[in-house]
């Protein structure tokens, strides 16, 4: 597979009469963009609000982030989401860099939603504070889940993907600023030099904990709760085959944007042919029952062994219950003689005294730690809120609370907040962006 991503470095976004792109400025016809959003009758109201790094802005509840993209050869950009099914990862796709579409609840938040500050102390906790954000702020008629802590957020998440595809289409006929080429030849067709290098697989344990469909990450539109671990080409991950879900404490979540830009896959690509032979991705999951965990772990071990992997990097989208899957796969890979490095975050409590993972094993002797979900974060008010600040304390966002004996509510009358890192939007970036670690104090 050979994927060519044509990159447009967006320096400025503004609304205008005609959607266009010129010299780093993306002009968006708001009416046209909103008509794409409103194609779903379940969207009852919607607005697009632009914000950029350095703005005195707080965004909450954020449900999803997507890099604007458009597949040039054959659509859709997000197969099974914005259109019919088709294979991705091969051919040409254009991407608007330095920006992201955020799906923001106009009023209602849910357990897996997060917060982004565009400047100040809070900005360091989410990589999305570094981008120009195109906030789709919407409400829907999904009354069945209006007051549920767990929401599927279907209408707004799908609308955000349509919007990202629409924005990507603006540059479909323009020559990109730069082009990235991702090409990985079939495993049995690699030359002797590559074959002689240690073979490495990347194991992704995507979030799949909810039995009912509609919450979990999707692979080509298919619920990850219903998959057995399967082998994927890394280009598929980059090119919209997988989208983020609507369940998991937010700092542990992977957004669609994170899949599209997975830094660990990029690092593996960089080393391919030099120090390693990068075999590809084993897409696994994090189902809750013990038998499902064991079955998935067995499949990962089998696929990695059958491919002849010498080493693996594994990462989990979650913590707590999912640590059992993470540790089990590491243990089985090590048992099969596959040298494994794990990437995860920890839950050591606000005081740092708790056991870092719910499951542990001495086989997990090489772990990269990307943060502590329970870190207590106190932030001053921001001048403008996009969305609804009260959602952080009202709607069951993990990391926010209505009241606490010692700390009071998460949202105070003056707009300042106190929360756990849990509610920082995709804050622990276990797909590789995290510049955090956890150390002994």
């Amino acid at each position, binding site marked *: 597979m050979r994927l060519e991503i044509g990159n447009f470095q967006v320096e400025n976004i503004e609304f205008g009469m005609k959607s266009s792109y010129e010299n780093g400025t993306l002009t968006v016809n708001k009416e046209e963009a909103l008509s794409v959003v409103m194609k779903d009758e379940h969207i009852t109201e919607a607005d697009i609000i632009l914000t950029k790094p350095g703005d005195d802005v707080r965004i909450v509840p954020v449900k999803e982030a997507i890099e604007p993209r458009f597949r040039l050869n054959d659509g859709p950009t997000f197969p099974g989401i914005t259109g019919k099914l088709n294979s991705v990862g091969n051919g040409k796709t254009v991407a608007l860099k330095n920006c992201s579409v955020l799906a923001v609840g106009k009023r209602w938040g849910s357990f897996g939603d997060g917060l982004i500050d565009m400047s100040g102390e809070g900005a360091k906790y989410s990589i999305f504070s570094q981008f120009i954000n195109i906030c789709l702020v919407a409400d829907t008629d999904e009354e069945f889940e209006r007051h549920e802590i767990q929401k599927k957020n279907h209408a707004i998440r799908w609308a955000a993907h349509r919007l990202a595809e629409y924005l990507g289409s603006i540059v479909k006929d323009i020559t990109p600023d730069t082009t990235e080429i991702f090409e990985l030849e079939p495993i049995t067709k690699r030359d002797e030099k590559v074959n002689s290098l240690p073979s490495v697989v990347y194991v992704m344990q995507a979030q799949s*904990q909810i039995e009912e469909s509609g919450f979990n990450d999707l692979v080509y539109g298919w619920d990850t709760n219903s998959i057995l671990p399967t082998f994927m080409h890394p280009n598929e991950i980059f090119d919209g085959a997988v989208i983020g879900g609507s369940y998991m404490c937010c700092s542990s979540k992977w957004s669609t944007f994170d899949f599209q830009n997975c830094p660990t896959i990029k690092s593996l690509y960089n080393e391919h042919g030099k120090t390693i032979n990068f075999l590809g991705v084993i897409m696994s999951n994090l189902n809750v029952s013990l038998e499902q965990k064991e079955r998935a772990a067995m499949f990962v071990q089998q696929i990695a062994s059958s491919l002849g992997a010498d080493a693996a990097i594994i990462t989990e989208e979650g913590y707590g219950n999912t640590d059992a899957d993470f540790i089990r796969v590491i243990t089985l890979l090590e048992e099969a003689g596959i040298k494994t490095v794990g990437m995860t975050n920890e839950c050591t409590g606000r005081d740092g005294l708790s056991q870092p993972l719910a499951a542990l094993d001495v086989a997990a002797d090489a772990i990269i730690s990307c943060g502590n979900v329970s870190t207590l974060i106190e932030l001053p008010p921001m001048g403008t809120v996009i969305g609804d600040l009260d959602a952080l304390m009202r709607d069951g966002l993990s990391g926010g609370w209505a009241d606490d004996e010692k700390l009071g509510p998460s949202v105070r009358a003056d707009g300042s907040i106190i929360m*756990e890192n849990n509610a920082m939007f995709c804050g622990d970036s276990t797909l590789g962006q995290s510049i955090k*670690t956890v*150390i002994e104090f």
Partner: protein
Amino acid sequence: MKKGILYLNQFFGQIGGEDKADYEPSIHEGQVGAGLLLNSLLEDTEITHTVICGDNFMGSNEAVAVDTILGFLEGKEFDIFFAGPAFQAGRYGNACGVICKAVKEKFGVPVITSMHPENPGVDMFKKDVYILRGGPSAANMKKDMTQMAELGNKFLKGEKIKGAETEGYYPRGIRLEIFLEDETPASKRAINMLLKKINNEPFVSELPIPELETVPIAPAIELANAKIALITSGGIVPVGNPDKIQSSSATRWGRYSIAGMKRLGNEAEGAFKTIHAGYDPSAANADPNITLPLDALRAYEEEGKIKSIHDYYYATVGTGTAEGEAARMALEIIEYLKADDVDAVILTST
């Protein structure tokens, strides 16, 4: 000008050698012995007093020694407390640990000592006290005291400290997140670690697997004579959640009467529901007994399989809840179980 107080044993406090090891605690104005060195190393801070106590006296009369010394300190103004360095001296290490811990608890000031890794005081007190990694003998006095002063200066100036390894003290079992100064992303760290592991080169895991505390399986009990209690981390509470238990990262738990109740009524009946955010609540709201199996346990009670059921059940929420919080809540709940002579507990999750 800030103020500090230093604790020394009989030897470094210049009272005498082993023959003076029973020396009772005393307090002296200003600096004595090694205190002069510490005083010269501190910035904008004066060692105003020196406490001296014999190692044997502290070892054999700990309560008296601690009370006496805390009494000396009562009413004195000080911003920081030092002890030692104790090098590899076991009794001195114990004394430094004991007094530092007591001073920290009573006065809430930073406390710092220093010991060699083989000093038994390290394992005894490293979780309570900042213990710097020191040398084996008094030949290391200047180096160890300098380290103590450097860490002390940071506390006194209110500077952020940079963790156990960088500052040179023994890890205290506290793991907190930091932003890496060189901003190396996790993806690069992972590849580097992987290449080292592949090539059998040494590497340092960012999450060392801690020693696990395993709980031995309890001895069997006579079920027919047992009083059983039900506890759940599945968030089953009376509708309305009277104790406002959080839906995730819980710090609260509740105790609710099930006396005379055959089974838990459901949400529609206005009785019980789950407020746990980490699983699909519909089945538990329709029938809370699937999470907290009161109905099944009552059947066992009627059949005589168990003697009785404790009149209350206990509930919290397990999702995102730190292990330390869970342990605290358990200790609080255990008091009630003990008071009612509960023999066994059925603990259900989600």
